[in-house]
């Protein structure tokens, strides 16, 4: 089970509201490579993962992603809480505002609501770990793209931190993949379906 800690993982202190930034950053909450999907992916994959060390990585990264959900939500809240309607009208954020006011809602920047269709829990060691490695890289690219579009240092600072976490997670999933490979049956040279082997 989980314990909530009343603290962000990394400080978020944004002084200037900005509807455009909110409109693009929301993708890291509910978008195809966002933190909510990441957490759901890793925490779901744990149950069919046969190696305890790898379960440790999935648990820790999945839990940390929940802390990132909170950080992204905080960024969105601080970017939008003081916006006046006239500052929203005519911006891409207006469509979000109509549906959610300045509440935090998990959606992609495109407006497509959060969906588990962009993540996978395959019940297979190698399929799942490769999915995770790819997911971390895709999330890193999303942060790269956000940093290309955002100038405000108050917003860039936590985004840079989150980008670095994607890189560290990728490294740890790489270690986990190595542990999994080392633990597999050496006869299974082509690494085909090593997780699901029901007894006959």
């Amino acid at each position, binding site marked *: 089970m989980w314990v909530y800690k009343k603290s962000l993982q990394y400080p978020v202190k944004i002084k200037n509201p900005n509807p455009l930034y909110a409109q693009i950053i929301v993708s890291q909450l509910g978008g195809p490579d966002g933190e909510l999907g990441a957490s759901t992916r890793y925490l779901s994959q744990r149950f069919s993962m*046969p190696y*305890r060390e790898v379960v440790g990585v999935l648990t820790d990264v999945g839990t940390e992603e929940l802390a990132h959900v909170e950080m992204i939500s905080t960024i969105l809240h601080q970017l939008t809480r003081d916006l006046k309607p006239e500052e929203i009208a005519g911006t891409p954020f207006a469509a979000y505002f109509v549906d959610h006011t300045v509440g935090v809602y998990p959606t992609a920047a495109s407006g497509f609501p959060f969906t588990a269709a962009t993540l996978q829990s395959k019940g297979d060691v190698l399929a799942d770990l490769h999915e995770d490695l790819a997911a971390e890289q895709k999330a890193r690219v999303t942060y790269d793209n956000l940093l290309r579009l955002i100038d405000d240092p108050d917003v860039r600072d936590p985004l840079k931190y989150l980008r670095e976490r994607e890189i560290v997670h990728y490294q740890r999933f790489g270690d986990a993949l190595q542990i999994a490979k080392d633990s*597999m049956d050496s006869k299974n040279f082509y690494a085909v379906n090593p997780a699901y082997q029901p007894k006959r």
Partner: protein
Amino acid sequence: MKNIRYNNRCANTWQNDNVRSRCRCDYADAAEVRIAGTKTRTVPQGRDMAAYCEMKEKLMALYFVMTELELFLDVHPENSAAIARYKCAVKEYGELASVFESKYGPILARNSDCADEWLWVREPWPWEG
């Protein structure tokens, strides 16, 4: 303070439930660890297993008391009787958790540092069995 009993209605839910038998069953299976390839630590067996399950259930019951009181206190923050019960549960849970962890391994990852090895990934995960 000592009169506060934890086998109240909430805790009784655990006692009356089939948690006890399920717990034994889970760890009996875990004794022959199905996980291949990685190092695992011996899990409690035999008479020790009964003690393990008893302590684990007591911890779950105490933690549930805390969970329930936290929820209640969120909307009744000045209820001194609930606060007193909560403090008592926190203390009792903390003491029992220390004993449990020293015998059977960490409940929280941060309590793994009492050994040379990271025991966190040597003990079974809760859904194993």
